[in-house]
């Protein structure tokens, strides 16, 4: 028994999720007049940024692996 997703799968999943969250956070920003949506936009923005950073970390790991591998 082992987890069926590998590093690349997680990488892809993080990329898609980060894009969805970042676009959503931007589109529902109060700067576009969306002041009546009942969700905590600050927290959504924070979550989007965290997922985005996680994706970038996975990319960094891949790059380091790629450079380190002879």
């Amino acid at each position, binding site marked *: 028994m082992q987890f069926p997703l590998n590093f690349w799968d997680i990488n892809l999943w993080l990329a898609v999720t980060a894009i969805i*969250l970042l676009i959503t956070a931007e589109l529902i920003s109060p700067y576009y007049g969306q*002041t009546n949506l009942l969700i905590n936009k600050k927290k959504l923005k924070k979550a989007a940024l965290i997922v985005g950073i996680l994706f970038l970390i996975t990319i960094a790991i891949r790059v380091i692996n790629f450079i380190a591998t002879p």
Partner: protein
Amino acid sequence: MNSTKLICFVLFLVGVIALAFSINYASSILAFIGLGLVFWGSILFYIRPEKYVKETLLDNTTLPLLVNLEKILKELGYKSKGVYLPPKYLKNFESSLVFIPSKTEQPLPKPEEVDEEKLYSKNPNGIFLTPPGLTISKLFEKELGTSFTRTDLNYIQENLPKLLIEDMEIAENTEIKTENKTVTIEITNHVFNEICQETRKLQKTHESIGCPLCSAIACALAKATGKPITIEKEEQSKDGKTTKIQFSIIED
């Protein structure tokens, strides 16, 4: 448990079960589904809004207090504009006070004459009132993480639009212009629109103290500039969406 919490919990639980099955059956599709459900369950739980009240409730709670102010001002027969006193006039620097002189062209009271606990002032004649926007301005300070007493007009000019639009989400657009001793602020589609409209019907309150939003900004300006502030003009655009407030900085 309310419905939102329940939905989040169900999403999370189904996600965990899917993840468990994915490990058991080595199914990547189940793993993706599980991961997605766990993630979105957690995200939806995390971004739930704080407690909110309907706008009408806000309007109906505030209005009677403004009506009382109107009664006091009518009874006293004061016609002058209220002066928002800067911290140097007050014992408590973090507080705010509006002084309404009994007659126009009357000088401001000396700092030692000002007492936040008192209602009436004898020298010069007038009354000290707690501004209706005092607590809102304190909320602004809390959101900004600083006291307006430690800031200046430039800080207000740079940060107020972001505060009202992004941080507090009480307006769709805010523009600030400063010319000599006049600060003009235009606020579009703000949540205090209804209260401001009702305040306009209360002539004395409207002329001397202003609506809660104007009052809050006046408190902030008095603290930031360190000078007395009056609300010169407060008007609404024809479409009823934009409120234009003109503040005057008084040289003391």
